[in-house]
Every structure is written in C-alpha cells, then in structure tokens.
C-alpha cells in the first residue's frame, strides 16, 4: 500500500457510453429471445443450481448488457443446463441456448 494507506477506490458506476456490450450483442444475435426478458425472475426461482449456489440468469443478462462480462459469467458458472428455466419462462425465451452461447463465447477469449 502507498504511503497514504488507501487507494482511489474504483467507481461501481457503469458508464453506458464506454461500456462495451459486444458479448451481449453476439449472444443476442444467436438467441434474439433475450431482448424480450421482463426480469420476472421465474428462471432464478426454478433454477436447480439456484438452491445451492448464487446463480441468476436474469442478473447475468443485466450485467452482460452493461458490459460486465466476467461478473455475468461468474453467475452462470454453476449452471447444470437442466432447462427448467426455459420451461418456466413466461416470454418463451430459450434461456438454455443463451447460456450455452455465453459459455462458448467466453472460452474463445
């Protein structure tokens, strides 16, 4: 630590002019349904992994759209792909497809 004993703490504010949500746009191209998400949380409520781990597809979408890719993917890490979220989604979004696309895009670096 520097001689002052503290550092400039980074702002948690997202600047939409600068944030790069290219990953979100790629996923959107692959699964256009995610643009119709109304954040009702049914997916998170029915999530099998949600019982054990902090996993939230809804929040991941939001973080992705704000360009915070690493935090978004960290939320999807424990997904078991069981597909219950797709079954309960009132907007009929293929959430499982979106999660696969995210996992694939992420590994390509």
């Amino acid at each position: 630590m520097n001689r002052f004993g503290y550092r400039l703490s980074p702002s948690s504010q997202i600047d939409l002019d600068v944030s790069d949500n290219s990953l979100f746009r790629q996923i959107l191209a692959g699964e256009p349904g995610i643009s119709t998400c109304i954040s009702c949380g049914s997916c998170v409520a029915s999530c099998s992994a949600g019982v054990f781990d902090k996993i939230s597809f809804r929040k991941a979408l939001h973080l992705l759209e704000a360009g915070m890719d690493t935090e978004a993917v960290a939320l999807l890490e424990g997904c078991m792909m069981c597909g219950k979220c797709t079954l309960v989604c009132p907007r009929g979004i293929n959430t499982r497809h979106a999660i696969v696309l995210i996992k694939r895009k992420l590994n390509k670096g």
Partner: protein
Amino acid sequence: MSCITRCPRKNGPGLIIQALRNLSQELGYFIDSEKGRQQLVLNRALCGNILNYGYCVYPRTFHYSDHPENGPVGKLIEDNLEAVHKRVGSNLDGEGPGILRKIPQSDLDELKRIFDVTGATERMEKIETISKKRAKELGLSDEEYCRQIFTINSEEHYI
C-alpha cells in the same frame, strides 16, 4: 443527504442509515462488521475533542502522521502551529472570543453534563467495553486493535 432530495416518497434514506447505525451500536452488533468496529476510533477522536477542547476537530489532535494527505503545507502548519495561526489572526488557546479560542472549563463541564444526561457517555462506555472484549479475543493490545480498525479495509464494498 442527496438521497433526501430525490426520494419520490419523501423518505430520508440517509437518516434511516444513521438510525440503523445507532441501533447496531445500541444492540452491540456493530462489533461484527469491519465498518462497525471503526466506531471506537471515531468516538475517541471526536468525543475526545468535544469534551477536552469543545471542538469536533482540533489542530493539536490532527496529526500529520494520521493525515498524510494534508500535504507538505499541512506538515508546515503542524510544525509551526502557533506562528501560522498568529499570522492569520486566530486566537489559538487564547481567552475571549476568536478563532480556536480556549473554551472555558465551565462550558466544557456543561458539555460533559449534557453528555452524561443525554446518554452519550453511556454510549461511549458501551463501545469501549465491547471493543476491549473483542480486542482481547483477537489477542491484540488496545493500541494494535485501534491501529488495525483505523487502517484495514477489506475493499469488497464496491462490487
């Protein structure tokens, strides 16, 4: 307090936070959080200044070592405090009215009585006793404990 101007339901989020902090001190939960533990150094500094000098902030207790951001000018002011204050016309530790005057002991006693009567002293003692207990549990001397709570920031507050 910018939140008060903006709340469409006329609430005061800032005041609610303040009430919660007071509550956590009353019920003793403050000791379990990093920011809560800092209350000890705050009480000692602020209440110390008020009861001893009648000011919330007092130059003689505002050490450059604790406030390096005061910069070289701050260091210069601290090194020749009396001279600087005389130069700018303050009445440091002087009698009668004026800047940073010596507040008569009678007024300080009144403040002490106000502290006793309104529960401030009781609050300070509670913070002291609980903090001493925690310091002993952590096996730290009082000085080390204060140093720790004064400087350590786990920095997981902005995720």
